[in-house]
């Protein structure tokens, strides 16, 4: 095997640092600022400071900071995976990134069709952002996806895309899309508005409920530990031995599985809604007519 050059190793180290250091910094920040909690407390993100802005002041919270961490980590992952791409004798990381790219391409082609060729990077970024955000809870950090504002932002972007593709057939086409059976037009409008809300709440609710259940189980196990092992003297009576084990197994489900599943679902719904909003037949008919005129 060919020895890698020093520059290559240095760049690799930089990218790995980009992937890991933000998470580490977030952990340190959390340890420094988190007050010791007593009992069960299900709260939103911690507010570090508040910026006065028009309409509504902006509280800079854990979810903001952690979103930034996720962004930097994602950038590090992108740079690391695409570092040293070759056409033959490819490395393991290139296998991984090619596999991911081809998978997302195939997924997008399957559910959206030929017209949406520019969408795979968008779908990939949704998957990356959502999954990494949810996986932050593995490190004990606050997952930004359990903040409704974060997910709502993505859902609103998806809603904007849906509207954009509905307008591709002209303003009249946009109005017509609600009057499929004309009687149900009000319901269609409601369901249109409900789309981003349901997307946001689905994602947010799943991740938050995972955290809540985690807290509940941990607290419950602490209480149980006190009841069962409380008679032991000193340290053994105080230490919540029963908290070891079960929360980890639950974390595999709620943090890893649920987090990745929600990312997949969000991406899937995005593709379905956006491609469903686009009436390809009518669009091409209009285009042809325009060319003829």
């Amino acid at each position, binding site marked *: 095997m060919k020895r890698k050059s020093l520059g290559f190793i240095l760049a690799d180290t930089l990218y790995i640092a980009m992937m890991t250091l933000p998470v580490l910094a977030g952990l340190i920040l959390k340890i420094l*600022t988190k*007050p010791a909690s007593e009992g069960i407390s*299900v*709260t*939103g*993100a*911690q*507010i*570090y400071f508040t910026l006065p*802005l028009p*309409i*509504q002041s*902006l*509280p800079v*919270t854990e*979810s*903001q900071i952690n*979103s930034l961490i996720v*962004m930097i980590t*994602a*950038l590090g992952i*992108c*740079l690391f*995976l*695409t570092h040293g*791409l*070759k*056409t*033959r004798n490819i490395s393991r990381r*290139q296998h991984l*990134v*090619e596999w991911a*790219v081809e998978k997302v391409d195939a997924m997008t082609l399957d559910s959206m069709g030929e017209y949406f060729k520019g969408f*795979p*990077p*968008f779908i*990939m*970024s*949704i998957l*990356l*952002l959502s999954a990494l955000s949810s996986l932050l809870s593995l490190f004990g950090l606050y997952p*930004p996806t359990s*903040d*409704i*504002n*974060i*997910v*709502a*932002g*993505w859902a*609103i*972007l998806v809603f904007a895309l849906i509207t954009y593709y509905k307008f591709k057939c002209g303003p009249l086409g946009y109005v017509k899309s609600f009057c499929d059976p004309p009687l149900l037009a009000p319901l269609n409008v409601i369901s249109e508005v409900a789309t981003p809300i349901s997307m946001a709440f689905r994602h947010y609710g799943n991740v*938050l409920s995972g955290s809540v259940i985690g807290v509940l189980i941990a607290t419950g196990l602490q209480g149980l530990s006190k009841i069962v092992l409380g008679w032991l003297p000193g340290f053994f009576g105080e230490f919540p031995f029963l908290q070891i084990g079960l929360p980890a197994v639950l974390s595999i489900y709620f943090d890893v599985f649920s987090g990745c599943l929600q990312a997949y679902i969000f991406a899937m719904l995005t593709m379905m809604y956006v491609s469903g909003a686009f009436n390809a037949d009518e669009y091409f008919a209009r285009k042809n007519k325009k060319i003829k005129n």
Partner: protein
Amino acid sequence: MQTLEVISVNLWQTLISLLNLVVLFLIVKHFLYKPVKNVLAKRQAELEEHYTTAEKAQADAEADRLAWEEKLSGANAEADAILQNATELAHNRGDAIVSEAREKADGIVRVAQNEAELERRRATEGIKREIVEVSGAIAEKMLEREVNVEDHRSLIDSFIENIGESDE
């Protein structure tokens, strides 16, 4: 330290999150998709190139094979022709040599015969002369007078001719 409510909608946070997704989209597009797509396209192009060169090489090899086969069969015929020519030439040359040798031998034999004939004639001539002289001396003695050989040459000659004829 304060915390947010579990559900608290904030316009700016939402907007920031939206922009975050847009920025990440740009990052993924530029830093992940572009290089990977580039390398995939490059590999595809390389593969195509390899295929075309391989096909070309195969076609070339096939053409070469055919050409060589043709040449080989041509060479066989050529070798046959050369051999035939050479045989014919050798045949002709051998014939020529043999006939020349025969001619030469004939010439030698003829010369030898001629020489032998000449020798014989010379010998005959010598003998004749001696006989003339001897017979002249004998006749001089017998007649006791000098016979003029010059005078009687014709006489003696005819005599000897007669002897020779009666001898032969």
